[in-house]
């Protein structure tokens, strides 16, 4: 009987122990399952990158500076990481990489191990230009500093940008990864990227000219004016100014193209036969015809001028910027033959008034048609002949 009770008790205890062990094992198993679920699931960490809405390719240089200097004075982009899991995500760090299609990887910025962060469930951290701007439910160890690595190609790009070289066609990608470091084992929790394109700005290929300044050249008095050509541009940049005599040039367009296609030579700044009045380099956005070129322009002729400037792109290519091709016609001072011709029409007294008032003959319109300066002289001569032969009368 005792044995029976003892044996029953032993069996009961054995069962209880077995159940208890089983329960413990089950609990451990459940805990392990939960534990695995709380670690390194990419869906647990939500990563979001936003470029500033005002960001344009013109800000590229400044954006690199902001990343390199890790300042948030001007926000160019924003990285937000949020723990969407119910567990704590520990030992996280951010890695940022800027990649250019033309230059390859430009720079990488990796959060140093001294500043890793942990996010509690629902926790969030926001970086702007790599500086923390917002945190919640966060535990951070040390300062969140970044180790920057600028590639040699990246250094070249950034230097060229700072030199003011033109931004050319390219595709930039900002890659962001959040990795977790567990026992020196790195796992990527999540990654995201954002891209933006850059393009050579058409406006950079145009040299603007001030309308008023262009208008000043119209009706130039060749007797006593040394004209100044000017345009909008930077100081200390070489500009090539070509002036063509449109009457002498056989093909004005071809002459300009031919000139700009060739290298400038100080020994070939004039070619009267071809119609090249002047082909010079100006180091400023203007060129004053020097005294040594006095008499360069003749009265009553039409001249065309254009400015070219070479501009370097960040990719070390050269592009040519041009001004519009502009024309001006020089006026006839009222003297000599012009005076005599005008006397025929207006009489001595009136013509003298024109001279006293400093007028210069500019152009003639007959029945709504405007004639060029060359034709003006021909028309006046014809009129004079007809007046002399009493075939034409002028009614004032």
């Amino acid at each position: 009987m005792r044995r029976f009770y003892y044996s029953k008790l032993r069996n009961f205890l054995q069962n209880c122990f077995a159940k208890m062990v089983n329960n413990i094992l089950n609990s451990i198993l459940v805990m392990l399952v939960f534990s695995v679920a709380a670690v390194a699931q990419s869906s647990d960490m939500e990563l979001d990158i936003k470029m500033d809405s005002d960001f344009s390719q013109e800000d590229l240089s400044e954006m690199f500076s902001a990343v390199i200097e890790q300042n948030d004075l001007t926000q160019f982009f924003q990285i937000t990481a949020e723990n969407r899991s119910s567990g704590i995500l520990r030992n996280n760090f951010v890695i940022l990489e800027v990649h250019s299609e033309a230059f390859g990887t430009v720079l990488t910025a990796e959060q140093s191990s001294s500043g890793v962060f942990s996010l509690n469930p629902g926790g969030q951290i926001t970086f702007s230009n790599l500086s923390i701007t917002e945190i919640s439910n966060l535990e951070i160890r040390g300062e969140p500093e970044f180790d920057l690595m600028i590639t040699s190609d990246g250094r070249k790009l950034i230097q060229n940008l700072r030199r003011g070289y033109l931004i050319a066609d390219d595709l930039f990608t900002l890659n962001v990864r959040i990795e977790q470091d567990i026992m020196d084992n790195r796992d990527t929790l999540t990654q995201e990227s954002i891209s933006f394109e850059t393009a050579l700005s058409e406006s950079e290929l145009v040299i603007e000219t001030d309308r008023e300044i262009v208008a000043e050249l119209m009706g130039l008095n060749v007797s006593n004016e040394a004209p100044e050509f000017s345009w909008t541009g930077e100081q200390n940049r070489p500009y090539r100014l070509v002036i063509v005599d449109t009457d002498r040039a056989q093909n004005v367009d071809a002459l300009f193209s031919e000139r700009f296609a060739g290298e400038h030579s100080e020994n070939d700044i004039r070619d009267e036969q071809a119609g090249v009045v002047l082909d010079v380099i100006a180091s400023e956005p203007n060129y004053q015809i020097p005294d040594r070129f006095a008499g360069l322009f003749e009265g009553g002729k039409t001249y065309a001028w254009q400015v070219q400037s070479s501009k370097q792109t960040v990719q070390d290519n050269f592009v040519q910027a041009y001004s519009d091709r502009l024309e001006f016609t020089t006026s006839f001072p009222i003297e000599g033959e012009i005076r005599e011709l005008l006397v025929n029409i207006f009489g001595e007294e009136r013509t003298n008034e024109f001279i006293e008032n400093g007028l210069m003959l500019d152009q003639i319109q007959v029945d709504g048609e405007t004639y060029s300066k060359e034709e003006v002289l021909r028309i006046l001569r014809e009129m004079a002949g007809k007046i002399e032969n009493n075939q034409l009368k002028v009614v004032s």
Partner: protein
Amino acid sequence: MKKTIITLVVIGAIITGIILMLSDSGDSSYEVPVLNETDDEVAFVRRYVPSVTVTNVSYADSLQEVGRALISGDTLTTGNSGYAMVLFLDESIARVSPTSQMVIRSELNPEKNLNLRTHVGMLLGGMFLDVESNPNREFEITTTRAVASVKGTRFGVTADDKIWVEEGEVEVTIRETGEVRSLVDKMYLQVEADGTIDSGELTDQELAELVDEYEILESDLIERQMKIQFRNRSGDPVEEQIRVFEQSDSSNE
């Protein structure tokens, strides 16, 4: 008493003398012809260069187009640069120079298609005429001191009493004296203010110069609008507009 009679005779003689002098001065031997004038058209302005105006008692019109009809009694006036070519019904032509003024009077035939008697009173300026030869018709031009009667010729007359003949014959009556002179090819006559007469023969060049003045009226005219643009010291445009009358055939030369 005797003295009184003598005085009265002297005064009477003086008054008579004055009356005779007055009645004798000017056109003592010339009477302005009396014409049978109507409101019919006696001539047309065939060509002109402005300004040309036609005035009469009831109108003063500045010509705007060719073909303006003139009736007897019209006064035609040309401005500083004005020319006019007047074509009479009998195909006589009067080319009028600038700054001229004349009164045109004419009597027509019963059919109203020919000028029988034409009288042009030249008040200012001058003209060059081409009068058809016809013994049955009369064409007369009066200046201050002369009357030119023509039967068919090309000749010129100025208001200051110069008559010159390119070809044909003109009979000139000096109004003050009634003296009649005949001018033929290249001859001219000038009645001076003091009544003296200067006459002679024109050189070819002098004749050409006189005729050439009217050359503009020898063919149809085209009006052109011209703008001559200048620039002042500030570079601003200054525009002068002029009207040009050009012979239509000269523009094709």
